[in-house]
Structures are given as structure tokens and as C-alpha cells.
């Protein structure tokens, strides 16, 4: 008789720890791979699982092995059809890997899937987000318990007394649990009979009543007043907190001066805002507006990858945004967020117009408007925190002083992005209430 052990109920995911260690080790390369995917993928897709290929560095497991392209060896193979000794067979490709035995797909060359949390962790790493913000962004949705019927199991605090007593009552009737009244009646009759002078008839009656009383009392003890089967608990369903809709406007200057690096930084800036909005609102839409000397609404693909030549007139983008808001996103139904990225170039005369547009229309409609000016790393030393700068920067600086929901910053690398949003994330509780 062999020993049987049923291991199916043992804890699962025994290798989870090993997986985490592996990811930690491959962190740098995975980060790069995720960054590439974010660069090429859609903004909204960041918040999902990603397949990545096996990082080559840091995860190799070297050992001494023979060089395939040296020396003489023999392969003993089955299935000879027409060869005779002395026949020559050309080597397939180079090195002769084709028909030599034991070649299987390398373990170092495969793609695997990272979970959403793992992707976000890697994404956040250069952005230098505070931990609390990271945690907030990773948390999928806020849930709120809602009453949803009754359950037979639950915590004592959730006992529904009304429902429990109703069940108990029904059961007592069905099982004919003697009522207190019946007992009282018998007891009263007994008392009267006992007070009367004794006779054979009364004696008999008393005995009968006593037996009856005892029987009823035994029955009452057997049939509980409230039995565990009666108990009902309030059941709660965890439902996502109802959130309003949000729309996010991405504005970007796509004139020739915006290169690959600038666009990459801009994209990360948009991704971060989108993650924030997605967590906060049930439905988030993204509108992409690109502009040179004229603005147009485009899809994401065109937004990031098509260049257009022309001058730079920022106010066209603001006008376009305003037009779209009027048309599709009435501000009483939508929370409007805007993120603008630019290298700061603008026609001097246009900057005045931008201030006007912002003050009179846009800032009234927006919950939040963030502007980043993407500058060269060398420039960041020169400008530092001075208020001097490009014409757009100076113009927006004026807006910044008037509107608390306006944020602006110069960014030279990924770590500069978060400070732009700092206030947004810091003011969370207030936002939650208004949303």
C-alpha cells in the first residue's frame, strides 16, 4: 500500500519569490524595455500587462562550454536514407547547427509577461515619485461597500436582526415551539387546581397538567428560540466609487524643433497625468491636439510620430481646445484636465494672445492645466529657476500667478516631471470630494 499525499491544496506560487528575485536582477534592462514600449505604445496602454523579452545582461548563467566552431566531432544520427561512407553533406548555414543533435530553442531568448504592478513599478522608477503617490496610482479603484441582500455567513457586527427574527419566528411556528402563553395558562390552571381541595379527579388533572407542562418545557428547550440557521447577515458588495468623467487634453508643439528626446519626455508627462486621471475617474478620454502655426485634433499615432513643418503659434492650440470643449465636453459634465508640452518657442505677438485666452476662457473651464517646457540638460543649468526664458514661458508665468490650478515647469529629464504634478497629487483629498 503506497502512501498517498494530496498536495493540491498546498500553497501555490512556490516560485513567486524566485520570480521577484529574477525581476529585481533584470531591473535595468526591463526598465529600458518598458520605456521603449511606452515610447512606441499608446498612453492608455501603460496601465496594463506587458510582454517583454528576456534581458540578456545580468541574467546569463555562464559555464564552461565547447565552442561550436572548433575542432572535430562526430554526430551519430538515426534515419539514414541514402548515404554511403564518404558522402559529403554541405553544412546548413554557418557553423552547422542545423542537423547536429540536441539543439533546442535557447532559454535565454523568450518573451514573458509582466503584471500591471510590475510595469508601473518600472515606469515610476525614473520619475522619482513619492511612495504614497505610487501606491495611489497602482491601486486600481476606490471601492465602497453597498448593501446587497443577505447572507447566511458573516461577521457578528453585520447580523440583520429583523431578518434573523423573522426566520426564527417562522421556524418556531413550523416546529410548534410551545409559546410562553400556553405555559402560563397551564401554570395558572395548576395554581387554581392546587388551591382547590384535593380530590381524585383534581389529583389526576394536576398530574396530567404537570406532565404536560414538563413536556412543553422540554420541547421549548429542544427547539431554540433563535437557532444558528435563522441568523442572517447583511451582505455587502464592494462597488467602485461612482466617478465622473474626465477628459484630458494633450497639447504639443510638433514643429521641427521638437526632437525624439523631447517627444519622449512629453509622452511620459502625458502618461503620468493619464494614470492619475484613470484612477480617479470612471471614464477618461484623451484628446490630442498638435500645433505648428495651426492646430488640429489628431489621433495618438499622428500626434507622436508625424512631424509637420511650419512656424509656432501656440494660441491656435488653445483655440482648438476651447472649440472642442464647447462642442463635446461641457464643463458641467466633464472634469477637464490639460497638459501642454512645448519647447517654448512662440511668435512674440502670439504670447499676449495666449495670456488672454487662458485668462478669459480656458482656465475657467479646466480643473488643472500643466505646462512643461522641455529644455536641454545644459540649458537647465543656465535657466535654473529664473523667470527669464522663452516668450511662452514668460507669458505663462503671468497666468501662473493668477491661477492656482495652473502648474508649469521646465524639464530636462524624467525626474523633473513629477514636481509639475506635485500639487495635483498633494491635493487629492479635496479633489476626491469634488469628484
Amino acid at each position, binding site marked *: 500500500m*503506497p502512501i498517498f499525499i494530496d498536495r493540491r491544496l498546498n500553497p501555490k506560487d512556490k516560485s513567486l519569490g524566485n520570480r521577484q528575485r529574477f525581476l529585481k536582477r533584470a531591473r535595468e534592462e526591463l526598465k529600458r524595455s518598458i520605456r521603449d514600449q511606452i515610447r512606441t505604445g499608446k498612453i492608455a496602454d501603460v496601465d496594463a500587462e506587458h510582454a517583454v523579452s528576456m534581458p540578456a545582461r545580468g541574467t546569463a548563467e555562464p559555464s564552461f562550454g565547447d565552442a561550436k566552431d572548433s575542432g572535430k*566531432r562526430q554526430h551519430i544520427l538515426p534515419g*539514414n536514407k541514402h548515404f554511403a561512407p564518404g558522402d559529403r553533406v554541405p553544412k546548413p548555414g554557418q557553423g552547422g547547427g542545423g542537423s547536429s543533435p540536441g539543439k533546442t530553442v535557447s532559454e535565454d531568448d523568450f518573451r514573458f509577461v509582466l503584471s500591471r504592478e510590475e510595469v508601473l513599478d518600472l515606469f515610476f522608477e525614473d520619475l522619482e515619485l513619492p511612495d504614497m503617490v505610487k501606491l495611489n496610482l497602482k491601486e486600481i479603484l476606490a471601492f465602497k461597500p453597498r448593501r446587497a441582500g443577505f447572507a447566511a455567513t458573516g461577521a457578528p457586527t453585520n447580523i440583520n436582526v429583523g431578518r434573523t427574527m423573522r426566520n426564527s419566528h417562522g421556524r418556531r411556528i413550523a416546529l410548534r415551539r410551545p409559546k410562553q402563553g400556553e405555559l402560563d395558562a397551564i401554570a395558572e390552571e395548576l395554581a387554581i387546581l392546587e388551591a382547590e381541595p384535593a380530590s381524585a379527579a383534581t389529583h389526576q388533572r394536576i398530574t396530567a397538567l404537570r406532565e404536560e407542562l414538563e413536556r412543553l418545557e422540554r420541547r421549548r428547550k429542544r427547539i431554540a428560540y433563535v437557532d444558528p440557521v435563522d441568523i442572517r447577515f447583511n451582505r455587502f458588495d464592494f462597488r467602485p466609487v461612482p466617478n465622473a468623467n474626465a477628459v484630458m487634453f494633450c497639447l504639443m508643439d510638433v514643429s521641427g524643433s521638437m526632437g525624439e528626446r523631447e517627444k519622449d519626455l512629453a509622452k511620459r508627462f502625458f502618461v503620468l497625468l493619464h494614470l492619475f486621471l484613470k484612477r480617479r475617474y470612471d471614464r477618461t478620454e484623451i484628446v490630442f491636439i498638435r500645433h505648428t502655426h495651426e492646430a488640429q485634433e489628431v489621433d495618438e499615432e499622428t500626434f507622436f510620430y508625424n512631424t509637420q513643418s511650419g512656424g509656432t503659434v501656440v494660441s491656435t492650440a488653445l483655440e482648438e481646445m476651447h472649440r472642442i470643449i464647447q462642442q463635446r465636453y461641457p464643463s458641467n459634465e466633464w472634469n477637464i484636465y490639460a497638459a501642454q508640452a512645448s519647447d517654448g518657442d512662440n511668435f512674440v505677438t502670439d504670447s499676449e494672445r495666449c495670456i488672454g485666452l487662458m485668462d478669459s476662457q480656458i482656465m475657467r473651464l479646466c480643473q488643472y492645466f500643466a505646462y512643461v517646457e522641455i529644455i536641454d540638460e545644459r540649458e537647465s543649468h543656465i535657466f535654473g529657476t529664473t523667470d527669464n526664458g522663452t516668450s511662452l514661458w514668460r507669458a505663462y508665468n503671468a497666468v501662473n500667478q493668477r491661477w492656482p490650478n495652473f502648474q508649469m515647469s521646465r524639464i530636462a529629464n524624467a525626474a523633473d516631471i513629477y514636481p509639475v504634478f506635485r500639487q495635483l497629487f498633494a491635493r487629492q483629498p479635496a479633489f476626491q470630494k469634488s469628484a
Partner: protein
Amino acid sequence: MANQTSKSGQTSKSGQASKSGLLFSGSDWDFKTLSRAYEAIEALAIEELHLDVYPVQMEIISSQQMLDAYSSVGMPLMYRHWSFGKHFLYQELLYRKGGRGLAYELVINSNPCIVYLMEENTMALQALVTAHAALGHNHFFKNNHLFRQWTDASAILSYLDFAKGYITRCEERHGVAAVEAILDSAHALMEQGVFRYHRPPKLSSERQREGVRERLEYEERSYNDLWRTLPRSKDGDNVGEKDPGMAERKKTLNLPEENLLYFLEKNSLVLEPWQREIIRIVRVVAQYFYPQRQTQVMNEGCATFVHYTLMNTLFDRGLITEGAMLEILRNHSNVIFQPGFDDPRFSGINPYALGLDMMQDIQRISTEPTAEDRDWFPDIAGNGNWRETLLDAWANHRDESFIRQYLSPALMRKWRFFILADAASEPHYEVASIHNERGYEKIRAGLAHSYDIGASRPDIQVVDVDLLGDRQLRLEHKVKNGIVLEEASRDATLRHIRRLWGYEVSLAAIDAQTGGTLNERSTSQIGE
């Protein structure tokens, strides 16, 4: 299929089954049926094949758990390391994509012999797996001389338990990164971490290990730097000054040494006691798997032969239904499928197929030999006692010697074996021998040679080190047939050796025939 849900239906069914004499009917299994099937199969194995097995412990696991077991080299207990996570990702991917099915079973060379059964298997498959693993592999583990001499079936699980706990404690004390660094380096040398020529010492018992550890801890605690400043004894001084010469150095260090991990563990000047213990753990695990790698064909052949014979006997005696037998045969033929060399599915010689064919061939030679067989196998041809012949082969051979001794011309013709000579300098292969009179001997020798792990793995040994001089560790690689080491992985591995040794390491490639030095690589030439 969840066992609980099918239990009620199964009992009534198995009730019918026992009335009709069948071991089981239908595809669902439960523990009672499994147990009945095991007992019937075990009785049959002892009666029919005279097998001798360890007691069996069967464990039912889910596919997820099977994947877990895969990634930790098939052991139920294993210390943590990132490389296992990497293997897990790989296996999981293959499985998810449907690229590879999971094994139906996993068997562990331990006493009692642990057999993992997948819960998804049908009852017919469970019976097949029971015969294959719980009897076939089990018999092989218990009786093959390699396993008897080189591994300790009763101690391995408790040793792994100790290893896992020890490494966890080290991680707590010294940090995960430090432990990981040692494990990385030790893993790189796993191939060079086995004793090939002399038997490894027995695994010490828990109490002995505890004693050694306590002693080491005591030494660490009571270490006093003052002792170092004591004047050395006269003799010691003399030895130091005179330079005892290479021959004497080699003698004291027991060089040359083929087990690099063993050498580093015992002689490295930079390792802490806990680091030595970790190297020892890796070394013991490598040694434990060494016999398995030398007996793939025999082990799988033995198990396949046993299940094929037993299942047919069960069917002949009317103990299993035709449907079950059909399912078993289908799986059996999948397992022993061997495509030809030019088939796109070809990925080397299938050890199940070669093993089974050779063992059935032995059966044929001993019962109905041809004239050719009498020529080639005068000892066993027509002896009529195939059981004893097979039991003897299972007990006393490894793949290399088994093929060298028993591969018959008839089988070489059946497999249409041929030898392709592959010289790196030539743009083409040359067919050296085929399955004909002149080629039989060569093919047999060549195939046997390809299963000789000692010959097919790079032969690297520690040859010299001057502990009182520059402390450079000198390694030697015997280059056979001009096959040198792959350079990138060689350099990476040398870096790992330097980490364990603490000083420069050099590796000389020596031609095995001429004795001339082909090249020499030192870690001083390799950057970090």
C-alpha cells in the same frame, strides 16, 4: 477533475469494476482506485519482472505545482535563487503557449520513492505513470550501481531541507545580495563540481553537520588576531622559505583536482565559513544529479520497458479495458516517437525510444537469437533468461557502457544509424560510417562515446597553485580533438572562479594528444 466531486460516482463504478475483474473503468480516478491499481501493478512487477523497489509515496499535484517543481530542478524543496525564477518563466511560457505539455509525472530518487502524479491525468494515465515511475524508475534508482554508490536516497530530502534553511539564515545574516553572489558563482561551476573518478563522501547526518557548524561558529566567535602574531615554529618557517617545489605543493593540495567546487571550498583563502557551506550545498546537489545524467537512456528505457510490459500483461489478463489500453498505447507511442535526422521535429535521439528498443532487443536476443546475434552476443544469445539479463544490465551499467555492450547490429539497421564527421575547418560534413558490416563497431563505439559525460564535457582541472607565492590558481583544460572553450562564457566563468578564489586565475588549454599549450587565459586579461 476535482476528486471530491467525482467520488460518489466513482465508488459505484469501481464497485462494478471489481465485480467484472477490471482494475478500473472510466477515466476518473480516486485514491481507492489508485491504491488498488498500484497494488495490482506492483504484484505483477514482482511476479513478471522480479523488480525490487523502494516503498512508494504518491503525491497528487496540480499543473501549477508541476511547473513549480520543474523550475527548481525537479526537487520538492529547494533554496531560493533568481535563476529558478527565470526557468519558471520559461517553462510557464512554453506551457501557456501550448508549446510543450507538462510531464505526467515526476519521480524523485529518494527513499521512500516520491512520485508526483498530475491531477489532470485520467485513470488510465495514472496506471501507466504508476508502472513507469513508481516501479520502473524506482527499481532503477534502487538497483543501479551508480545510484547505489554515488547518491544517498534516504538522506537527500533532509539534506535539501537543511540547505534551504541554511541559505535562508545566511540571507538574513549576510544579505540576499552576498548570498546570491556566491550562489551565482557556484552555479557557474556546477558542471565542474562533481567527483567523476572517486566516490564522494556520504552525506553526513544532521547531527554531524550541526556539530561542524557549531565548531565553525565557535571558531568565529573566539577568533583572536593576536594568535597571528605569535612567532612561527621553526619547521613552519623552513617550509615557507624553502619553497617546497611544485611536486610537493601538488601533493599537499591533492592536485590535480577535477572537482573545482570542492577545491575552492576547501582551499580558497578568501571565503567565510558560511560561503564554504553554500558552495558545499551546490556541490552536493550537482553530485546528486550526476548519476541521473549518465543514465538517461537506461533510466527512461527501463521505465518505459517496465510500463509497456506490465500494461500489456494487465490487458492480456483482462484487468483493464480496451479503451484504457488504447489510451495507454497512444501515450506510449507519443513518448517513444523518434523522427529521423532530417525531420524538422528532430531534436536528438529520444532516450525513451532508444532505451526501450535496446531492452526489447535484449529480450529478443536471449529468446530468439539469429546467427548474427550469436556472433555478437555469445553470452546472452539464446540463454532464454531475458529477465535476469535485463536485471543485470539495469544494475550494472550506465548509458555509455550499456550501449557499448548491448547495441546490436539488428537495432542499428532498424534505426539506420550513421556517423557524420564534422570538422570545423571543412565547409561540409562527411558521412564516416553507416549501418553496415564495416560500420557497426564504429557506430556503436561512437554512440557510446557520445553518452560518456566524462568525455563530452570539457575536462578542466586545478593543476597548481602557490599558496605562499602569488596565489595564482592555475587551471588546465585538456583539449580533445581540437574542441576549445567558447570564449565569452569561458571568460565569464573565470570571473566567477576569481570571485571564489580571491586571486588571479588562469586557464591553459592543453592539447590532449601532443601536450602542447594552445592558449592561456588569465583573469588579469579579463576586465570586471
